[in-house]
């Protein structure tokens, strides 16, 4: 038991991918920053280059950095493997559900101008519906990339 190791290595039964403390500290410091940048890219997609796909890939990069350095077992605390397929399906359902709500409100499929929020201008209604769409896209892309990595590791 060397004192320079990161604490997470000492948890019983949780083996880390690498023993180097430099890599551990760098990955643990970098992953939340990438997470914040991913959220920024996702939420700021209306006003600058960015959006759901790019934000989702950045969020997945944050989780995959933890997976690659700290090992699969410890990084389960951040993003459990069994949640990924469910999150992916939830993202696709958010996307399709926004379109279905527009159908029930009397418009065409995915025609956000008909969403049942009467005190909004249709243009601003589209503005907020785009945010929901991007949320679905982000969830699906992030969860699918993490899920593919997990499946490849497990094999």
């Amino acid at each position, binding site marked *: 038991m060397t004192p320079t190791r990161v604490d997470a290595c000492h948890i019983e039964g949780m083996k880390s991918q690498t023993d180097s403390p430099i890599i551990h500290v760098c990955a643990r410091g970098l992953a939340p920053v990438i997470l914040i940048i991913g959220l920024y890219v996702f939420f700021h997609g209306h006003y600058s280059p960015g959006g759901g796909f790019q934000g989702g890939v950045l969020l997945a990069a944050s989780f995959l950095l933890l997976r690659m350095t700290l090992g699969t077992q410890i990084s389960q605390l951040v993003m459990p493997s069994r949640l990924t397929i469910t999150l992916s399906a939830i993202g696709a359902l958010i996307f399709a559900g926004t379109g279905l709500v527009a159908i029930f409100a009397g418009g065409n499929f995915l025609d956000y101008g008909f969403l049942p929020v009467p005190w909004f201008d249709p243009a601003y209604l589209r503005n907020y519906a785009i945010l929901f769409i991007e949320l679905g896209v982000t969830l699906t892309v992030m969860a699918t990339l993490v899920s593919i990595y997990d499946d*490849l590791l497990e094999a």
Partner: protein
Amino acid sequence: MTELMENYNGFLVPAISFIQGYYAYLFLLALFTIGLYAMMMKRNLMKKIMGMSFIQSATIMFWIVAAYKEDATVTVYHQPLGLENPDLYLNPLPHTLMLTAIVVAVVTLGLSFALIVAIYRRYQTLDEPLLLERMQ
């Protein structure tokens, strides 16, 4: 001497403008050809997938080159520029299409890696002639 310079310029100026206008296409043509060569001639399945990734990159960058306009800015509405003149913004449609194509390319890569892992688990090889032999 002046005549020689004129002849020289008469050759050089069209050549430079040709390179300026078409170097992106020629580079992407080379990239696509490398990818096609890797997909057709290499025997290792992993190298074939690398060639497929080359071809995807070449196609995506070709569309991005097609969307480029001289002296145009990014496709975000800027108040002083206005919206009337479309020459001031890049063409947003190829960017959108390629944005989706990039994510599909990533998922395609992941899926092909999964298939390769399944093939290796079953046949213990990735070499194509050996694989065909073992499949008999």
